[in-house]
């Protein structure tokens, strides 16, 4: 469910050279064509879709390097919200 939404955001805003739905979880998004400009748009769309705000420490290239990395960041933010 969360993965589907992440992939939808990537498909709409990532400007990837490949179909976001066919990417493996740990495929390198930068090698798939994610630019730093597009990654900001992905961040904004993820914040809107999941109603979160990435804190400064997560605003790193690594946070958005794969579907799995994005999921881990969102999970962490969701966990922090519960506490």
């Amino acid at each position, binding site marked *: 469910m969360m993965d589907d939404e992440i992939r939808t955001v990537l498909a709409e805003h990532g400007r*990837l050279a490949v179909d976001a739905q066919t990417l493996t979880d740990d495929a390198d998004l930068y*090698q798939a064509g994610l630019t730093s400009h597009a990654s*900001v748009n992905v*961040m*904004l769309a993820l914040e809107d879709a999941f109603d979160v705000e990435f804190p*400064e420490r997560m605003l*790193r290239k690594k946070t958005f390097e794969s579907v799995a990395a994005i999921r881990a960041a969102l999970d962490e933010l969701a966990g922090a919200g519960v506490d």
Partner: protein
Amino acid sequence: MTTVDLRAESLVARAQRVADEVAAPAADEVDRDARFPAEAVDALRVEGLLASLVPTHLGGGGASIAEIADVVAALGSACASTAMVYAMHQIQVACLVRHGGTAAIDAYLRDVATDGLLLASATSEVGIGGDVRSSSCAMIRVGDRVHLQKEAPVISYGEHADAILTTARRTPDSPPSDQVLVVCRRPHVRLERRGEWDTLGFRGTCSNGFLLVADDDAAYVLPDSFGDISSQTMLPTSHIVWSSVWLGIAAAAVDRARRFVQSAARKTPGTTPPAALHLAELVARHQQLVDLVQGATRRYDETWIADDRDAVGSISFAIEMNALKVSASELVVDVVQRALHICGMAGYRNDSPYSLGRLLRDAQGAALMVNNDRIIANNAQLLLVHRGR
């Protein structure tokens, strides 16, 4: 602390000697003929200054970024083209130091230190429109060899460099932003001149266009992606050392204005020359530039010495370095123009000791080399997610 200070002093003292004795006397001719400042670069090599940023365990000077920035500024006051060549060389050395780490790249850095090799770069490409984070040409790998061919609209001092660090797509199937950086060494790289370099300023950088064809060992492809190399090292180092070139230009302009006002004051003791007020304003503006560049240099230097990749990879840091470039490039033009206003016709003339023509033309390049519009657009995008900390 004392040791560091002494070493810094000796580095800058050596640079000052090259600036005063070699670069300054040739500067007007280098500018007029748009020729490479060969004698100044040779002198920098002899003084060991081309190797300053190479770590000591690889035979280099082990200097910090702040020390390099001081050398660049000292050269910039004498000959901006020489300073820019030196600055661009150090940007490439910084990339090898931070993003090599392999036996082949370490061995090459040793050669840089021992032989005083000069490194250039080919990051822009015909048809791409100035975005260095995008390539059209691709690296083709066959076994242990790599081949690449690139139409470069400019390669500064390409014909005088011992290697050209070149960006390319990782493979022929890679998207434009998935780039690698390849050390294209002589004699494994061939350049065919495609364009002239007849510009308003920085004429001695000889930044002609070339077709670059390279065929070399795959060990000379840097292991890190160019995206990381660019954001962590190439961009911040570029903005620091370029700003230091402009600092040198600005210092030379202020020096001419000061000498002009003092010369007038000697003729009218008891009466403050009208231009003295403008000099006071100019010095205030110059101080803004000095403190801006030195503050940013100090902060980058701290991350460089600590090798803090997380800090340099942050959005805050990228925004700060981008803002530095934009502000410094505008301030240097303002400083030189104010100096021209103070020196009047003596500054306007090309044959006067107060001449500001070359400084003004060189300063105008600051906002254009990596256009400020592009940098402001980048910051506008980053600020959409920046948290202000």
